[in-house]
């Protein structure tokens, strides 16, 4: 999928500002964690200390956008699993770019070039929906739970400084809005 096919070039260079949506102060509604969460980190003792030591960006406010009723929403997947079509350029270390997964790509052609070795890939090997639930979203449309599935989805490679991904995330936002997406489903790995 080339950028020119989806008109990205005309969007490059446009300044993109904050939309002016109301930002709520931090600490609005956070359910108290049940017993389960810390037990799951204890399930991965070799990784827990590393994971908890990773720096996380913190923000003064949480911007948020409203949307239409859920059963009418158009959903797109944003994955951080480093997915792309076989033959497409693999992700590299510190890669902040995304790959487009469009209607011309079969799920059978998706491969994963995420640089980290510290997560399970056997699930993806058995079922693409474990990280890219495109078939499940389509079934939810048939069930009337959501309105439609976007034509284009995007994958980033999660082992990158989030601040380095801001520009490409904003570019992806332009494309998502062009695709009339009203529900972005962010799926980590």
């Amino acid at each position, binding site marked *: 999928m080339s950028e020119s096919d989806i008109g990205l070039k005309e969007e490059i260079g446009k300044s993109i500002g904050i939309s002016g949506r109301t930002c709520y102060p931090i600490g*609005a509604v956070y359910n108290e964690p049940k017993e389960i969460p810390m037990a799951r980190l204890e399930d991965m003792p070799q990784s827990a200390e590393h994971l908890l030591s990773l720096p996380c960006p913190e923000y003064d406010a949480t*911007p948020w956008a409203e949307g239409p009723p859920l059963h009418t929403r158009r959903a797109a997947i944003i994955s951080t699993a480093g997915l792309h079509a076989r033959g497409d350029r693999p992700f590299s270390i510190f890669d902040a770019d995304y790959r487009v997964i469009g209607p011309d790509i079969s799920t059978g052609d998706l491969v994963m070039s995420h640089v980290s070795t510290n997560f399970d890939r056997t699930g993806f*090997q058995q079922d693409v929906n474990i990280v890219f639930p495109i078939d499940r979203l389509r079934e939810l449309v048939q069930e009337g739970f959501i309105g439609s599935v976007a034509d284009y989805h995007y994958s980033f490679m999660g082992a990158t400084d989030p601040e380095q991904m801001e520009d490409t995330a904003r570019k992806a936002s332009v494309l998502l809005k062009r695709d009339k997406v009203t529900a972005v489903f962010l799926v980590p790995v």
Partner: protein
Amino acid sequence: MEAEGLPTTQISLIRPHTEKIKPPRALWVPFELGRPLGEPNDPGFQKRVIRAALELFNRPSVPVLEDFPEDAPSQSIRGAGEGAWACPVSFSQEEGADLREALHLEVWQLSSWYRMAYVKNVRTTVGVSGLDIRVAAGLLADLALGVEVENPLPDTSWPSTLRLAAEDVKAYYMEAVTAQPGQTGTAKEITDWFWGETKAGEVLRALKEVALKSDDEEMKLLGSLLLVPRAQAHLGVR
């Protein structure tokens, strides 16, 4: 994206991270890394996860972080099932074979299982390097043994070529070993088997040591972080 007017909801795999970042809508799930939708080939379970995440759009205020209440079915057999899975492939080795020859024999012995897996899954995840699996395996063995060879991907750095070749070899092995119907090995059992009981795992551990001694910083990074998982680093060490 929210600032751009795009409503988002997300899966959270590491709750403490989400608590710090405070996105507007997040569903924490008790699943292992790499399985954000919980259970492969279980559409009903996956849709319960997705519904729970999408229903956060109906919450009256943000930020909201809720917990998905179910464990993935295969996670519930962890511990009790430890050691219950056995690799269905019986590797035989030739007397006196060196590491490269032993690796090639393993790749060959897995080939019919890999084909069976391809028919069963109607797909494969092998192919990030674009190399034939025998070429990828041979390349890893050559570099691990200190044999000088040409980079088959001249537009790619050596560390990247080796990383991509390693990903393909791992995928080949793990897809092959789950080809048989009824093979319910957990992710940990399969991964431990690869790193602890196969020549491929041995080759990659040897390659890690070679990479760590390199003068090239990218190669050192490959050795230190990008070849052997932390959870399996202790396996096969003699």
